[in-house]
C-alpha cells in the first residue's frame, strides 16, 4: 500500500511541494492529499493585486482543479485541518473527518498581523491577503472616498496603489522613519516618498495608530501624536505572522515569537512532520518571500525521498514594481556604520532615481545594494553579489548608464555558468545554455524545459539575453517568426508582400505560409495589406478582429461602441445635438472618451448600421476608434481663444487628424497639439506631439501613455507647418515599414538600432534614400481614404453582416443592462 503524504495548506509553497514530490517520486511511493482552507486551489498570491485588473480569480490560478485529479492528487478545498494526533498519526478537519498520514507537511503560511488598535473590528477595516479580501475591499470602496493603509512595507504600498486605482484619496501610514524599512535606506525612502506622493498618495512616517473611530463603521483614525484623519476605509498591512497554531496545539516546537522550528531538512522536532514556507522558522528567521519558500519545498520533497538535500537559508534580495516605481534591494541593503564597507551612491532627484552599492573594502565585492526609481542593473549586480565576483575598479560604471548605453547583454557574458539566474526555481546560467544547446529558441521553450522564469518572472529578460547571446554565439539566428504559420517576421513579411501582388490573406498564406492561419497572422496580414494598398479592411473578409469586422469596439457584454470622428475635439453645438438625440433615442450610454471624442455605448449589431446612417446623414464620419490606426489628435483652443497661445493648435490638430485618418499601422497612434509651452494638450505623452513656439512648432516623437508611459523626445525645433507634416509623413511610413506587430512607436524607437539619431538621419538627412518612397506611400494613403461606415451602409452585401442570428431577425434578447448614475451599464 502507498504511504500517505498529507500537505496542510494549498498556497504557492504547498503546491510547489506537491509538484516537486510528483516529479521526484518516480516509484509512486506516496499518495498525496492536500487540504486548503480557501475555496479555490492555490493561486498566484505574488500577483494578487492584478486581480483588480480583470476581477477574475481564474486569472490568478496556478493549476486547475482537474490538474490535481489528473495527477492523482486529492485536493480538499474549503476544508481546514483543526487538530493533529501525532501518536496515532491522524488529523481532524473542520468538516469532522479524521484521516491518517505517514508524513505531514505543514505549509500553513501566515496571516496578516493586525496591531491591537482600538476599534480595529469596525466595518471598513480590511487586510490584504486573499482574493476574498480584495473582493471585499473593492465592493466597500464603491461607497468610500478615502482610505488609509497602515504599513509602508511592500505589501502596504501595493495595497495603496490598488486603492488609488479604485479612486480613493489614499494615505500610507508607517510607524518607522522610512518606507520599506527592511529593504531600503533613508535616502531611498525619501526618493520613494516623493514618487509615491506624485502618484496621488500621502505618506505619513513616524506615525503610530491609536484608535479607529466611528459608529459602526470607520469614520476616522487617531494617531498617538494626537493627530487624526477622516477616512472611510482602512487596509492593514503591518507584517505577517506564521500560522503555527496547529503545530503548537499538538506539541511541536515553536519559536519564542512564533513559527514552527525546522532544521536544514525542514523537519520539525517530529521526524514525520515538516514545515515549509511562511509558517516555518529556520535559524530563527521567517521567510516571507516566495523564492525561499520554493527552495524549502524542493529540499523537503527531496529529503522525504531519501535524497541528500538541505535548505541553508536564502537570499532576501528582491526586485519589484511598487506603484509603477522600480524598487530593489540586494543583500545587506540597510547596512550602515560598518567600518569594513564603503558605498557608491547616486542621487538623481530630478528624475527620482537613487542607487547605492555597499562594497566590502577589502575584497572589493558587493555586500548589498538599493535601487529606487530604476532597477535595470539589478539582475547583473545580483550576480556580482551571489557569486562574490570582484567589482570593476570603478564600480560606479555599473549603475550609471553610459551615454553609449552599455547593454545588459554585455553583463550576461561576464557571468559564470554557475550563476543563479532564476532564484524561484534555482536555475543557473549553465542550465539555460544547456537548454539552448538542446534546441530551445524561445523563452517559452526555456520556461517549459527548465521552469526558469515561471515563478515571480523577474528574470525573464535576463533569460532572453542569455538565450539570444547563446544563439548568436553558435552562429544561429534569433527566432522572429510571426507565428506557427509564417516563418517571416512582420517586417520581412511586409517587405515580401509588397514585392508581390497579393490582395487577400488566402493568397498570402498559400504563397508564403502554411495551415489555416490564426489570430496573429490573419490580423497582421490584414493590417499590412491595408497599410500599403488601402482597400479598406472591409474587403478582407474574416481575417480581422471583430472590431474591424463590425467597425466598432466590442464591449464586455457583446454590444459595441460608436465613436464618430470629432477632429481635434472641435464640434458644433448642432452636431452635439445630433449625438444627444441618437443617444437618447437608442438609450445608449454616453461618455466623453479619453481622446476628446464622444462615445455612444451599448449598441447591438443590428443597431450599428441604422445609427451610422443617421450619423453620416448629419455629416459625421467614422472615427476608427476600433482600429490599429490614428485615433485622435488632442488639442487645446490655442491662439484663437487662449490669451497665452502662440500657435493655432486647433487648426493644426484638425489638419493632422484628417491627413492621417484611416491608415492602418502596426499599433494605434495618438497625437496632440498644444498652442504654447504650457502644454495643455499633453502632446509629449503622445506618439506625435507638436507644441507651438514663437518661431513655429516643436515636434516631439514616439511617446506614449498606456501601461508603460514614456515621454516623447524632441525631434526638431522651431520648424514650419509644412515641415511638420513632411517629417510626420516619413516617420509614420518608416514605422509602418519597420515596426513589429503591436509595437507602439515608443517601443519601436527604443529598439531601433541607432535610436533617435538614426531616425533623424533617415527622415531629415535621407541617408537611406527612401524619403521619396515614404512620401509617396503616405500620399497614396491620404488620396485613397474612404469612410468605412459610409461604404458599409451603401453596400447591401456588407450591411447584411449586421445581424446577431443567421436564422432570426430578432436581436440578442439575453443582453441586459442595469441603470447606474442615470444611464445603462452592462448587467453583471
Amino acid at each position, binding site marked *: 500500500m502507498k504511504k500517505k503524504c498529507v500537505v496542510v495548506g494549498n498556497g504557492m509553497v504547498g503546491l510547489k511541494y506537491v509538484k516537486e514530490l510528483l516529479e521526484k517520486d518516480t516509484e509512486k511511493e506516496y499518495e498525496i492529499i492536500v487540504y486548503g482552507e480557501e475555496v479555490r486551489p492555490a493561486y498566484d498570491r505574488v500577483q494578487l493585486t492584478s486581480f483588480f485588473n*480583470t476581477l*477574475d480569480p*481564474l486569472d490568478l490560478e496556478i493549476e*486547475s*482543479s*482537474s*490538474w490535481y485529479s489528473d495527477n492523482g492528487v486529492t485536493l480538499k478545498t474549503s476544508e481546514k485541518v483543526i487538530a493533529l494526533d501525532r501518536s496515532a498519526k491522524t488529523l481532524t478537519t473542520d468538516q469532522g473527518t479524521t484521516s491518517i498520514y505517514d508524513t505531514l507537511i505543514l505549509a500553513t503560511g501566515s496571516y496578516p498581523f493586525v496591531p491591537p488598535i482600538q476599534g480595529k473590528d469596525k466595518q471598513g477595516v480590511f487586510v490584504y491577503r486573499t482574493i476574498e479580501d480584495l473582493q471585499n475591499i473593492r465592493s466597500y470602496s464603491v461607497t468610500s472616498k478615502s482610505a488609509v493603509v497602515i504599513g509602508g512595507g511592500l505589501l502596504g504600498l501595493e495595497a495603496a496603489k490598488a486603492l488609488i486605482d479604485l479612486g480613493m484619496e489614499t494615505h500610507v501610514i508607517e510607524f518607522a522613519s522610512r518606507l520599506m524599512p527592511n529593504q531600503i535606506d533613508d535616502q531611498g525612502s525619501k526618493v520613494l516618498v516623493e514618487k509615491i506622493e506624485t502618484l496621488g498618495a500621502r505618506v505619513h512616517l513616524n506615525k503610530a495608530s491609536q484608535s479607529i473611530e466611528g459608529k459602526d463603521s470607520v469614520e476616522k483614525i487617531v494617531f498617538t501624536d494626537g493627530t487624526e484623519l477622516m477616512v472611510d476605509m482602512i487596509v492593514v498591512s503591518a507584517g505577517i505572522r506564521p500560522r503555527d497554531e496547529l503545530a503548537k496545539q499538538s506539541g511541536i516546537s515553536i519559536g519564542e515569537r512564533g513559527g514552527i522550528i525546522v532544521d536544514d531538512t525542514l523537519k520539525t522536532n517530529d521526524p514525520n512532520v515538516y514545515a515549509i514556507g511562511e509558517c516555518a522558522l529556520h535559524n530563527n528567521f521567517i521567510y516571507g518571500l516566495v523564492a525561499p519558500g520554493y527552495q524549502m519545498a524542493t529540499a523537503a520533497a527531496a529529503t522525504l525521498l531519501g535524497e541528500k538535500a538541505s535548505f541553508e537559508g536564502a537570499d532576501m534580495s528582491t526586485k519589484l514594481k511598487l506603484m509603477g516605481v522600480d524598487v530593489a534591494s540586494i543583500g545587506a541593503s540597510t547596512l550602515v556604520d560598518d567600518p569594513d564597507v564603503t558605498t557608491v551612491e547616486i542621487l538623481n532627484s530630478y528624475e527620482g532615481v537613487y542607487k547605492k552599492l555597499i562594497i566590502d573594502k577589502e575584497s572589493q565585492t558587493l555586500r548589498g545594494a538599493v535601487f529606487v526609481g530604476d532597477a535595470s542593473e539589478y539582475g547583473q549586480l545580483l550576480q556580482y553579489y551571489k557569486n562574490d565576483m570582484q567589482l570593476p575598479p570603478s564600480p560606479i560604471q555599473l549603475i550609471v548608464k553610459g551615454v553609449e548605453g552599455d547593454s545588459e547583454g554585455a553583463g550576461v557574458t561576464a557571468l559564470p555558468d554557475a550563476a543563479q539566474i532564476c532564484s524561484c526555481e534555482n536555475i543557473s546560467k549553465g542550465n539555460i545554455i544547456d537548454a539552448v544547446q538542446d534546441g530551445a529558441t524561445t523563452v517559452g521553450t526555456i520556461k517549459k524545459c527548465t521552469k526558469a522564469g515561471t515563478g515571480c518572472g523577474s528574470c525573464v529578460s535576463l533569460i532572453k539575453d542569455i538565450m539570444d547571446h547563446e544563439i548568436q554565439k553558435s552562429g544561429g539566428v534569433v527566432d522572429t517568426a510571426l507565428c*506557427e*504559420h509564417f516563418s517571416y517576421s512582420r517586417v520581412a513579411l511586409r517587405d515580401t508582400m509588397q514585392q508581390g501582388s497579393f490582395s487577400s490573406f*488566402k493568397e498570402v498564406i498559400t504563397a508564403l505560409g502554411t*495551415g*489555416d*492561419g*490564426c*489570430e496573429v*497572422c*490573419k*490580423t497582421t496580414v490584414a493590417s499590412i495589406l491595408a497599410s500599403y494598398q488601402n482597400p479598406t479592411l472591409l474587403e478582407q*473578409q*474574416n*481575417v*480581422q*478582429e*471583430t*472590431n474591424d*469586422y*463590425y467597425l466598432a469596439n*466590442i464591449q*464586455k*457584454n*457583446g454590444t459595441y461602441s460608436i465613436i464618430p470622428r470629432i477632429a481635434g475635439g472641435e464640434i458644433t453645438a448642432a452636431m452635439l445635438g445630433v449625438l444627444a438625440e441618437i443617444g437618447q433615442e437608442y438609450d445608449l450610454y454616453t461618455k466623453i472618451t479619453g481622446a476628446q471624442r464622444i462615445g455612444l455605448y451599448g449598441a447591438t449589431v443590428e443597431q450599428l448600421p441604422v445609427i451610422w446612417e443617421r450619423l453620416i446623414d448629419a455629416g459625421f464620419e467614422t472615427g476608427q476608434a476600433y482600429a490599429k490606426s490614428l485615433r485622435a489628435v488632442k488639442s487645446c483652443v490655442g491662439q484663437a481663444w487662449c490669451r497665452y497661445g502662440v500657435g493655432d493648435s486647433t487648426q493644426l490638430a484638425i489638419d493632422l487628424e484628417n491627413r492621417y485618418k484611416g491608415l492602418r499601422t502596426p499599433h494605434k497612434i495618438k497625437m496632440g497639439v498644444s498652442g504654447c509651452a504650457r502644454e495643455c494638450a499633453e502632446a509629449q505623452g503622445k506618439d506625435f506631439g507638436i507644441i507651438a513656439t514663437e518661431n513655429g512648432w516643436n515636434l516631439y516623437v514616439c511617446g506614449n501613455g498606456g501601461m508603460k508611459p514614456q515621454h516623447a523626445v524632441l525631434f526638431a525645433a522651431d520648424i514650419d507647418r509644412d515641415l511638420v507634416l513632411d517629417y510626420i509623413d516619413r516617420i509614420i511610413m518608416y514605422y509602418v515599414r519597420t515596426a513589429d506587430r503591436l509595437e507602439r512607436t515608443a517601443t519601436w524607437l527604443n529598439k531601433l538600432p541607432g535610436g533617435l539619431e538614426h531616425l533623424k538621419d533617415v527622415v531629415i538627412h535621407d541617408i537611406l534614400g527612401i524619403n521619396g518612397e515614404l512620401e509617396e506611400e503616405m500620399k497614396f494613403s491620404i488620396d485613397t481614404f474612404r469612410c468605412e461606415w459610409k461604404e458599409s451602409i451603401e453596400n447591401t452585401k456588407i450591411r*447584411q453582416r449586421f445581424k*446577431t*442570428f*443567421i*436564422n*432570426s431577425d430578432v436581436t*440578442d434578447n*439575453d*443582453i441586459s443592462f442595469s441603470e447606474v448614475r442615470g444611464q445603462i451599464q452592462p448587467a453583471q
Partner: protein
Amino acid sequence: MSDWIQVGALVDAQPNAGMCAKVNGKHIAIFNFDLERWYAVQNTCPHDNRSVLSRGIIGDSAHEPKVVCPLHKNQFSLENGVSLEDKDWVLETYEIKIDDEIIYVKGL
C-alpha cells in the same frame, strides 16, 4: 431531440467566418474553413458567459482547428471544444452538415 435542425442556407455563409444561430433558445456558433470543413459549438464563452464566440477569429494551432474569443482571446478547439490553454473550460459541440445547400445542426 436529436433530429437535424435547419439553421441557415449555404448562400448566407462567408468563407472562413463564424455566424450565430438561435436553436431552441440556445446560441450556436457555426464556423467553416473554405466552406468545406464545418464546426458548431456553443456561442457563449465560458470565461465571462457572453454570447460572442461566433465573432472570434478562427484558425489552427498545431493542426487543431480553433476559435479565439474576441473578448479576452481565450482559445478553444473546434473539434472537441476543449480550452487550448489548459483551462478547465470545455465548449459544447454539435454535429453539423450541409445538405442540398442547407446548413443543419444536431445534438441540441
